[in-house]
C-alpha cells in the first residue's frame, strides 16, 4: 500500500464532521428522554407496573417532561421537521400529546384538519427535499391518506350535530388539499427529472383523497342548503344572511392584504388573486339576492364565496409555510413557451449522471446568440446544503430564437467542474426550444454543496451556446 493511504486515513481520523447543532439538540432530546424514562431503581418505591407504564407512554411523557424543563426550542424546531429528520418522531409525539387534551367533536375536527395540513406539508417537502427516498415518500403518502380518513370520520361525527360546522371543516380540508396540489403542479415543470416522479406520486396521493372529500362536501352542502331553504321565511335567516355578508366582505379585504406578502408575478399569487376575484363575484351575487329579500339564495351564494376564500387562504398559508427549497423553486419564473411549443418541451430538468455521458453539439449554428446567465440562491452555504442553480438562456433579439441540440440533453451544471457533482438537464425528445423575443428559457438544478470549506465555482453549460459560472463560498462546520 502506498504510504499516503495511511496519511489520508489519519487525516480522516482528525476530521470532525459532527454538527454542533445536531449534538446540542440531540442532547436536549436525550435529557428529556432520560427524564421520561428514568433508570429503574429498586429502592425507589415505584412498582414494576408503574415503570412499565412509563415505558409504554414514552412519547407522551417525553413531551410532558420536555415542557416541564422548558425545552420548547426543540419542540419548535421539530415543527418544521419532515419524515426522515431526527426530530420528526418528536413532532409526532407532540401531536399525540396535544390530542389527549382535545375535548369536543368540533375541537377535535379542527385539530385533525390541522394535522392533515401537517401531513400534506410533509408530502410536498419530501417530494422536493428527499426525492430519492421513495420509502419515506410512500410512508408519508400512506400517513396522509390515513390522516384524511381520520379527519373525514371526525367531520362525519360533527355533521350529525352541526352540519354547517362540518361543511366548514370539510371545505377547509379540501382547500388545504387543493393548495398543496396547486403547489405541486407548479413545482412539477421546474424540478429536476429525478424529482418529477415523486411530485407526481404526491399529486396522485392527494388526488385520491380530494375525490373522497369532495363527495363529503357535496353531501353536506345539500344538507345545509335544504336546511336554509326550509327556514327561508324566518327572521333569523335574514339576520344570519346580513351578518355573513359583512363577514365575507371582511374576509375578502383580509385576503387582499394577505396576498400582498407574495411576490409580484408569482404564479401562486396569480392563482390567489383569481380566487379572490371569484369570491368577490359570488359575494356580489349574494348581495343582489339579499337586496331582493332572497335570503336563502344569499346564504347559498355566500357558501361559494366562502369556499373560494378558504382555498385562497389555504394556498397562501401553504406557500408561506413551505420550506426554503420549495419557495426558491416556486419563485423561479416559468418560461413563456412559444404557441407552437408542446408541454413536453417545457424547461429541462436535470437528472444526475455518473459522468459526462455525451458531448452534445448544436445541429445548427445559431444566427442569434442567446445570453446565457447563471444564478444561485445564496452566496454562502454550509457543507451539503442544497444549492439551487438557475441557468437562463435569454433571447435578446427582436425575433424568436430556436435553440437546437443533438439530443434531449440541453444543459449541465457541476461544482468546480468535478464529475461527481455533475447534473445534466435532459428531456426526452426535446431537441429544440424556441424562446420568444426578449424572453428567457430557464433550467433549475439542485446540487449539494461540497464539504470542503472555501470558495468554489458553480459551472454550467448550455450545450453549444455557452458556458457560465458563478462563485460561492462554503463555510466550515
Amino acid at each position: 500500500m502506498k504510504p499516503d493511504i495511511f496519511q489520508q486515513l489519519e487525516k480522516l481520523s482528525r476530521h470532525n464532521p459532527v454538527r454542533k447543532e445536531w449534538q446540542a439538540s440531540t442532547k436536549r432530546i436525550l435529557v428529556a428522554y432520560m427524564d421520561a424514562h428514568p433508570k429503574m431503581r429498586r429502592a425507589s418505591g415505584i412498582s414494576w407496573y408503574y415503570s412499565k407504564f412509563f415505558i409504554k407512554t414514552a412519547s407522551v411523557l417525553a413531551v410532558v417532561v420536555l415542557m416541564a424543563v422548558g425545552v420548547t426550542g426543540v419542540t419548535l424546531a421539530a415543527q418544521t421537521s419532515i419524515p426522515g429528520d431526527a426530530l420528526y418522531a418528536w413532532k409526532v409525539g407532540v401531536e399525540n400529546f396535544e390530542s389527549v387534551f382535545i375535548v369536543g367533536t368540533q375541537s377535535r375536527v379542527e385539530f385533525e384538519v390541522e394535522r392533515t395540513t401537517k401531513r400534506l406539508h410533509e408530502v410536498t417537502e419530501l417530494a422536493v427535499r428527499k426525492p430519492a427516498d421513495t420509502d419515506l415518500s410512500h410512508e408519508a403518502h400512506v400517513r396522509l391518506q390515513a390522516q384524511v380518513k381520520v379527519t373525514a370520520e371526525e367531520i362525519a361525527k360533527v355533521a350529525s350535530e352541526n352540519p354547517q360546522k362540518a361543511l366548514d371543516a370539510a371545505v377547509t380540508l379540501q382547500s388545504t388539499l387543493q393548495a398543496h396540489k396547486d403547489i405541486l403542479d407548479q413545482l412539477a415543470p421546474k424540478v429536476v427529472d429525478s424529482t418529477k416522479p415523486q411530485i407526481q406520486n404526491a399529486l396522485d396521493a392527494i388526488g385520491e383523497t380530494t375525490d373522497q372529500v369532495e363527495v363529503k362536501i357535496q353531501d353536506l352542502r345539500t344538507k345545509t342548503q335544504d336546511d336554509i331553504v326550509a327556514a327561508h321565511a324566518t327572521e333569523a335567516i335574514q339576520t344570519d344572511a346580513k351578518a355573513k355578508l359583512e363577514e365575507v366582505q371582511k374576509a375578502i379585504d383580509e385576503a387582499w392584504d394577505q396576498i400582498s406578502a407574495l411576490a409580484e408575478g408569482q404564479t401562486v399569487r396569480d392563482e390567489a388573486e383569481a380566487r379572490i376575484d371569484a369570491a368577490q363575484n359570488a359575494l356580489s351575487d349574494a348581495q343582489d339576492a339579499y337586496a331582493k329579500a332572497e335570503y336563502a339564495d344569499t346564504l347559498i351564494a355566500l357558501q361559494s364565496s366562502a369556499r373560494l376564500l378558504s382555498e385562497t387562504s389555504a394556498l397562501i398559508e401553504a406557500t408561506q409555510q413551505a420550506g426554503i427549497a420549495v419557495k426558491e423553486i416556486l419563485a423561479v419564473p416559468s418560461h413563456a413557451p412559444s404557441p407552437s411549443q408542446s408541454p413536453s418541451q417545457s424547461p429541462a430538468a436535470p437528472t444526475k449522471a455518473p459522468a459526462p455521458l455525451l458531448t452534445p453539439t448544436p445541429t445548427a449554428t445559431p444566427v442569434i446568440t442567446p445570453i446565457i446567465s447563471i444564478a444561485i440562491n445564496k452566496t454562502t452555504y454550509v457543507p451539503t446544503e442544497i444549492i439551487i442553480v438557475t441557468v437562463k438562456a435569454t433571447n435578446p433579439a427582436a425575433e424568436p430564437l430556436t435553440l437546437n441540440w443533438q439530443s434531449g440533453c440541453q444543459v449541465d451544471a457541476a461544482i468546480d467542474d468535478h464529475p461527481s457533482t455533475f447534473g445534466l438537464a435532459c428531456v426526452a425528445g426535446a431537441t429544440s426550444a424556441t424562446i420568444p423575443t426578449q424572453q428567457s428559457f430557464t433550467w433549475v438544478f439542485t446540487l449539494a454543496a461540497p464539504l470542503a470549506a472555501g470558495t468554489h465555482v458553480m459551472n454550467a453549460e448550455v450545450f453549444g451556446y455557452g458556458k457560465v459560472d458563478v462563485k460561492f463560498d462554503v463555510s466550515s462546520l
Partner: protein
Amino acid sequence: MGIDEAKFAEIYDEFAPKIFKYCYFRVSSREEAEDIASQVFIRAWDHIAEGKEVTNVQGFLYRIASNLIIDFYRKRKDKREISLDDPDNPIDIPDASDVHEKLEQQWEMREVKEKLDLIPENYREVIVMKYVDDLSIKEIASVMETTENNISVRLHRAIEKLKSLYEA
C-alpha cells in the same frame, strides 16, 4: 458500572462525535448518520434504564451503532449485504452508481472515501474503527463480539484489499 442520568449525559458528550463519525463513514449521508447516532444513545439509555449493567461503554455504543447500521442497510434493501460473521467470504464490490452517490457527499475526502467505498463492508468497518475511530484491536473485537485474532486477520485482509485498489 453504575450509570445514572448525569453520567450518561457525560458519556453522550464524550462519545457523540465519535459515534456520529463512525456512522457517517459507514452510511455516507449526514442526515442518516445523525438519525442513527441519535438512536444509538436512546437505545443505550433504554438498556441502562432497565437496570442492565454495561461494562464497556465504548464497545457497547459501537455495537449498538453497528447493529443499527446493519438494520439501516437491510431496511434500505441495500445490495451490499453485510456479512460480519464471514470475513473469508467477502461480498461483491458495490456498483459504480453507489460509489458515485457517495462521492457526491464526501467531497473533501473523496480520494480515500472512493477506495473505502470499493472494499467490502465488513472490511471497511474494521478500517474505519482502526484508523478513523482509532480503536485498538481489542476494542474492535469487543464491539464486533469476536476474537482479537479474527479482527487482526480481517484488518490484514482489509488493508491488502485497499492496497490492491491503490496499486490497480
